[in-house]
């Protein structure tokens, strides 16, 4: 049975690799600066649409951590994102007008760029509203982490998505381009995460946080997945299976210890809940390009536009990675 299952998974991986090749046909290189990539550079891979206000802070955040090159797919932005990105010396930009949904919510495009340029590099696959926090990120660059992971024989690194939100109605504190989004969205849910283990792909499926608590308390099973494996020492054999939640081969999903110990892990601070989300929800509803009929965006429109406060008495205010580690949201493992 297990041999059969392995063959099935392998063929699934190959199909996924073929699929990304097909979907990559719609990508047009706008600026390709990948010849600047050096052997040991850490790369970031991003898909976006209309994110101009977020880009300046996003790029600076990851540059400061030590990302040397950004591989970006722009999916039909009309707000100047393309113009903004093509000016940056460390960005290679592809554009496409094709359907985000038909490209596996963008993951096919990313799989292709990772396959083409990522092999042999540590690559960080994130969205523009996701900010990686890892152990010692205030004193050690990302290179220190990837060197260490490599010395431990690890190929992937988990960082669960932590939804951050402001106190008070979401529209009350507008976001300025270049601003640290966590000056506004400073709060998070510390201890209401629910984990199921996926028996086939061996990844953990994490749900919970503010989206489950405040936006969909009656349908908890529909709450979005928060498990992410954004940092991978890429090889051409690898593919992201669905978003960055899981990979194939499935050994890459074993980012957790099952005998009681802790492996090192980080957190992706999620700056989704800023004032822009109200307009975005409106737009995405009409486009219908998101997961499960954009039901998540429907829920946002119903709750957030009405001025619902996501904050509660037991919300925690973000301080630093050490706080997240004490709360048990991430771990140093034995990276001392």
């Amino acid at each position: 049975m297990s041999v059969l299952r392995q063959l099935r998974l392998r063929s699934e991986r190959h199909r996924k690799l073929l699929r990304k090749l097909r979907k990559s046909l719609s990508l047009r290189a706008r600026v390709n600066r990948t010849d600047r990539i050096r052997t040991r550079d850490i790369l970031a891979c991003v898909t976006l649409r209309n994110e101009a206000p977020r880009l300046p802070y996003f790029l600076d955040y990851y540059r400061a951590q030590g990302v040397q090159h950004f591989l970006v797919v722009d999916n039909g932005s009309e707000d100047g994102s393309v113009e903004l990105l093509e000016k940056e010396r460390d960005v290679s930009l592809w554009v496409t007008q094709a359907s985000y949904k038909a490209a596996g919510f963008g993951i096919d495009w990313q799989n292709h760029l990772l396959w083409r340029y990522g092999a042999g590099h540590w690559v960080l696959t994130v969205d523009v509203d996701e900010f990686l926090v890892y152990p010692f990120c205030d004193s050690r660059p990302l290179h220190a982490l990837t060197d260490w992971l490599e010395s431990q024989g690890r190929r992937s690194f988990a960082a669960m998505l932590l939804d951050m939100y402001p106190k008070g109605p979401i529209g009350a504190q507008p976001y300025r381009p270049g601003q640290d989004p966590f000056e506004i969205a400073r709060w998070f849910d510390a201890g209401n995460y629910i984990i199921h283990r996926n028996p086939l792909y061996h990844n953990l499926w994490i749900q919970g946080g503010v989206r489950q608590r405040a936006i969909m308390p009656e349908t908890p099973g529909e709450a979005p997945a928060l498990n992410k494996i954004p940092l991978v020492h890429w090889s051409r054999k690898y593919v992201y299976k669905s978003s960055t939640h899981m990979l194939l081969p499935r050994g890459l999903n074993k980012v957790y210890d099952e005998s009681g110990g802790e492996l090192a892990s980080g957190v992706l601070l999620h700056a989704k809940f800023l004032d822009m989300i109200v307009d975005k929800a409106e737009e995405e509803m009409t486009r219908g390009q998101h997961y499960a009929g954009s039901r998540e965006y429907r829920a946002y429109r119903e709750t957030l536009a009405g001025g619902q406060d996501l904050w509660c008495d037991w919300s925690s205010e973000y301080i630093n990675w050490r706080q997240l580690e004490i709360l048990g949201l991430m771990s140093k493992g034995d990276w001392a």
Partner: protein
Amino acid sequence: MTASAPLGIIMLCHTALPRAAQVARFWLRAGCPVVLHVDRAVPERELEGLRADLGSEPLLRFSPRHRCEWGSWNIVRASQDAAEVMLGDFPEVGHVLLSSGSCLPLRPAEELLAFLRDRPDTDFIESVSINHATWIMGGLSEERFTLYFPFGWRRQRWLFDTAVEVQRKLEIRREVPRPLDPHMGSQWWCLTRATLQAILTDPKRPRYERYFRRNWIPDESYFQTLVRLHDRRVENRSLTLVKFDRNGRPYLFYDDHLQLLRRSDCFLARKIWPEADKLYDFFLSDQPTRLPPVTPEPAKIDRYFELAEKQRFEGRAGLYMQSRFPSFDTVGTARTAGPYAAFSGFEHLFENFEHWLGQVTGTRPHGHLYAPDRVQFHGGAQVWHGALSASGAIRDYNPYMFLTNLLWATRGEVQCFLFGPEDRLPDGLVDFMTHDPNARISVLTGAYLLPYFRGRKVDGDLLHHIGEMQRREQAWLTILRSRWVQAQVEICSLGEMLADPEARLRAIIEAMDGAAGLSVHGLPALRPMEGFDRYLVQLRDKGLPPAILKEFQC
């Protein structure tokens, strides 16, 4: 010949050559001769860069290059060759220190020179007899000396392991050449000229070499064993701080370890992450001399790395998260983060039981956490610690993690809550608690009948309902009375409780450190029970099993 300080430094380098050059300059500045060994795998171009970087220095030498794979004999050869260059070229050298390209001096060179000047005849080398060497991280100890190791451990692991197994089976033992007494220890030593000379010029050196060449990791045993033949005075410790993880890999030091490293009593540390600019800038400058001295606290450093080790292999009990997800059925260890007490049925018998429980134990008891409609947090809160929602739907989505999350978020505070067969609580959760050493479960059997007795008339539907309750309670009791119970379980029937409520309650409360509270607040009042026995008779006659009545009457 140039006049030199009495300490010579050998550096074995294979990566991050610019860093090695920086450290070499540090020693050269202090007048210490330096012999560099650069691994043969390093491209010529990089070596040229290093030579150009260092320039021509009268006290600098390069020794013959070898390819030094991890744990290979060539590391010993490289050390021997470099030592020969050192002893031959610099006659004023009294001590030779073996270090690597990723070692960083922690103190001013003068301090080390003064230290050695006071101990001219002492060899500093970690050299532990294999009979006592229990400190080795995940490896062989005595067998390193008695088996053959034709395969590499890092590259040919399967062959390596198989070869060891086969030799064990065949009881193959190599003989240790006399008069050697096998010792092991850290590779980084500081030996006197006399001892080193004696080792290098020993007439039996070829014989010993033939033997050690076949040992596993000879760089941790060659000098360590031979020093015992020739020494006059050995201090069994290394002057270089190295901490190993469980896989035998040295921990790296980063910028944020600066204060920790200042507390070391060693003179050097390895391994330093090559990009740790702050460490290199600090320790290679004159800053350590200018700052007020700190008292060495090596135990603090040990503790720091022990904690990391513990977190990796034991983790934090009761934490379920993205990189720690032990199976729920792990036996014997705590499944939750802290002690908690679950009570079943008490609130039906006593007035205001939760309130009283909170008063006597000083806790904030919850109501029925698993009540069918919603979670009854203490005080009717909508959200609890950790932003746990009172939504019944969320709780029922994963009732196990609801409990583990609650206990994790409230660690440090004992949690008390009520449960009963009328709750939406899967049997598996009772099983989970029963096998959790943190749990204290008190069950008052048959108490679920009391609300019916107080509220509703007996009719067919109700009987069905009660039968269902009884079945659930029976299922739970079977679990709670199983042989493998880890929790503290207290089961008593309504009848037993009514016979002597004081003694029963006192036992439970005292086990929860509530003796003082009990003497202040006394016992809770019993709720009215008039006619309950008649009600039971009525139920029995309607067709309910007579066991309930019997239990009550006894």
